[in-house]
């Protein structure tokens, strides 16, 4: 039993991070505002979770200007996609038990 739990990625322990990864799995790239609205979280809360995922190099951050407004969008890195798939598999295995 302990072995299976070991496959769960600590980086995805929070609800917000699971939400971010889920959105990025099915979209090429998503901007900050869209993530915020979909997950219904505060700016600061979301920013800190995004920073944590960026630090683990699971997500790629792209900053650009649309007109005069700064726009930050996020996409999944190869490692991030792999890690999240593993995490999902681990969750499914746990339920299958």
């Amino acid at each position: 039993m302990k072995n299976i739990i070991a496959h769960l990625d600590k980086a995805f322990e929070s609800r917000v991070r699971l939400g971010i990864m889920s959105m990025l799995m099915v979209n090429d790239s998503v901007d900050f505002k869209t993530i915020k609205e979909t997950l219904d979280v505060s700016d600061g809360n979301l920013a800190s979770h995004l920073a944590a995922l960026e630090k683990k190099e699971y997500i790629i951050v792209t900053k650009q200007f649309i007109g005069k407004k700064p726009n930050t969008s996020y996409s999944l890195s190869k490692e991030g996609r792999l890690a999240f798939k593993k995490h999902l598999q681990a969750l499914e295995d746990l339920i299958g038990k």
Partner: protein
Amino acid sequence: MEKDTQHLEQLAEIRDIMNKSTRFLSLSGLSGVVAGIAALGGAWAAHEYLSSRVFVNYLYNGTQAEVIQFLALDAFLVLIVAIGFGSLFTIRKAKKNGQRMFNKMGIRMLVNLGIPLATGGAFGLIVMYHGGYFLLPSIMLVFYGLALINASKYTLEDIRYLGYCEIVLGLLSAWFIGYGLLFWAIGFGVLHIVYGTIMHFKYDRA
């Protein structure tokens, strides 16, 4: 055991978020019902008008412009009622779901619905210009069906089946010329009401 339900909940939430961030899920079933009723009303008005005109039509060719004017006005009113109530119910449902109508998913759905629809509209006008009025109901049904199938990737997947039905009706209508109005009434009226009712009980009341 308690851990299990927790993991299950997590997986369900992941699936929900993936769905929510790719599809516009607030399409209201009631808007389909209203659009269907409006279409039936419009078809009935057109039928009444045409059957009272047929005799006169044979006598004066000059009335043709008048007939077209009436039908155009009729179709326009149906469109206004359908879009008006459709938006109203959909925006209301989106609000309830905490989704905005014009978020990225909503716009993506509208664009994908709009491309085949606009193509069909332009094509229909060209056919009309060449005098092919009898093909209009068929063109409207076929292109509307294609538009629904195209948009189904970005909203409730069920509209794909409505799209298939519209295309079949449209092709039948092109074959059985003379029953255009009847096919049109079935496609835009009856099918919308049936589909809208099913959607309402499947999604809206949950």
